[in-house]
């Protein structure tokens, strides 16, 4: 799988390159800013772009804006956005275009190499990888709607789904039986008026769409 990295810190750029290479990915370009990122994507048409949010010249949200441009011009490129802080407003921007093949993680997550590589694979395969912090923020904003009808346990399950976990992932996380998880998921869909059909990530998309992102 071919990956482009955009990260302005040399240290992290090299580190990410080494980690992804060691993880079996091919890093075709590693660049320090959004302009070069767009050129690299145009040149290499990679499978996935790993993008830092805060890059030169303004050091604000270049990464998010570049990601949106890539999504419009090259819909086939999966996007994994990294940031020192995850913010709901960035997530809303990012997810406004599409909710597949997209990830938004705290930079800290790269320290957990295995989890991070899993997230890369999940996003490249068309899934989502949202940081638990992002999901929490998205849910807070919409707490005064039918989401409020969910029990705390169901809310927890919904969060895990929004992070991109499968049912078996939720079973492992909550340490409950698979049938219990299925029951929570069904309840969530009933309470949110969503038909309980389709694959895991379609359900995540449905949830995210419901959340208005």
């Amino acid at each position: 799988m071919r990956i482009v990295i955009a990260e302005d810190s040399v240290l992290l750029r090299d580190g990410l390159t080494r980690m992804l290479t060691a993880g079996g990915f091919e890093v075709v370009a590693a660049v320090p800013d959004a302009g070069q990122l767009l050129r690299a994507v145009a040149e290499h048409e990679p499978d996935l772009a790993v993008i830092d949010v805060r890059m030169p010249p303004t050091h604000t949200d270049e990464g998010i804006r570049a990601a949106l441009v890539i999504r419009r011009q090259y819909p086939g490129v999966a996007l994994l956005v990294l940031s020192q802080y995850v913010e709901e407003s960035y997530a809303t921007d990012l997810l406004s275009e599409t909710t597949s093949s997209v990830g938004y993680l705290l930079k800290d997550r790269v320290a957990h190499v295995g989890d991070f590589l899993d997230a890369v694979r999940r996003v490249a395969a068309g899934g989502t990888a949202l940081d638990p912090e992002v999901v929490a923020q998205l849910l807070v904003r919409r707490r005064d709607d039918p989401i409020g009808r969910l029990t705390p346990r169901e809310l927890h399950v919904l969060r895990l789904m929004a992070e991109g976990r499968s049912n078996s992932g939720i079973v492992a996380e909550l340490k409950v039986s698979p049938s219990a998880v299925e029951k929570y998921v069904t309840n969530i869909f009933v309470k949110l008026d969503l038909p309980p059909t389709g694959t895991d990530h379609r359900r995540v998309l449905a949830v995210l769409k419901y959340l208005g992102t």
Partner: protein
Amino acid sequence: MTSADRTSRRVGAAVSALWSGSAWRATGNALAALLVGLVGGILLGGLALIWGAAIYSLVHWPVGGWGHAVLYIAVVVVGPVLALWAVQGLTALQRSRLRATLGVDIPLGPRAGERKPWPVGPWLAAATWRQLGFHLLAIVTGVGGGCLVAACWLAPLAAIAYLAAGGPPPAAAAAALIAAAGLLLAAPWAARQVTRADQASARALLGPSHNEELALRLESMTRSRADAVAAADTERRRIERDLHDGAQQRLVSLAMNLGMARARFADAPEPVRQAIADAHDEAVLALSELREFIRGLHPAVLSDRGLDAALSGLAARAPLPVRLRVDVPRPASPTIEAVAYFIVSEALTNVAKHAQATRAEVTVLRERDVLRIAVTDDGCGGAVPATGDGAGDGTGLRGLAQRAAAVDGSLTIDSPPGGPTVIAAELPCES
């Protein structure tokens, strides 16, 4: 010490004072005041004379017919304008005289009546009348004082001329010499006294009055405080940026390398694995602590995306459900937004720590030039700001009040026992 010693010492001091710089400066000032006083007297006296004559002529109907009447009316109307120019010109002249001869700067008052139409505004201002008063006084004191000082210095010449003019009786000659010597010795003292009075009256009448001075000081202190608050804010942003670009990236890199080492040496001997695992966990923890610290310093999202986005992050991270309503159509200044952010942040921290609340509500509204913030919880109430000894759980709340006060805002805490608690703040935002 005998009285003769004391007397001779005094005479010695008086004689040496004749050469002292301060005496000559004071003399120069008195003479300059004499000149400027004369100029002022001629100018103001002339104006008063012409103006008075015009009024007098109008009252006793002009003999020259309508042509003269128009001239007199014109003089009556133009008179105050000329007088105003004369007063302002003389004030400038007197100020530069004091600066040139004594090196004394009389502080400028607020510009007299600048909001009202000219020349009515300046004539309605007390400052103009005080200046006019000084110039009238200066005619008397300046001319009188200058003449007095000059007379003291010139007394010996007058005495010599008197003696040279032809044989006065010895007693009269001796009296003249003694009087001349006395006046000469008194000259430095007289010059200093005249100058002191001149300076005091200039300060009182040309400078700002007590109230004006307070208003000026308040204005300058308000400005410097706003600068200090803004500077502190800028500094926090700079530190945030430095930490983000430096320590934080390095720590992420370190944690990542340790994570990679942990994965690669999964089958190393136990002590090695344990050491790597500990270092890795430690680095991850340090990273998250540093992130929280930097966010407390200045949240980057506040600069990038504004208050609304920053507050929604804050609400999300609170350990209890927070309902957020933000309606700020026009953003406030970065400083005010930062204060608003930290008020909400600290208030929510307080709710989580002390209120035993199950939920909280945050509203931030902009009403014209005021940003209204309210943080409400359904907790146990009884929150009070600390009284200043630094103890108690209210220090955070007291800090909030200080932060609000630093930008001329206010903060009120309504927290009856049993709740609910409402922390409300109003921050001014310039339009």
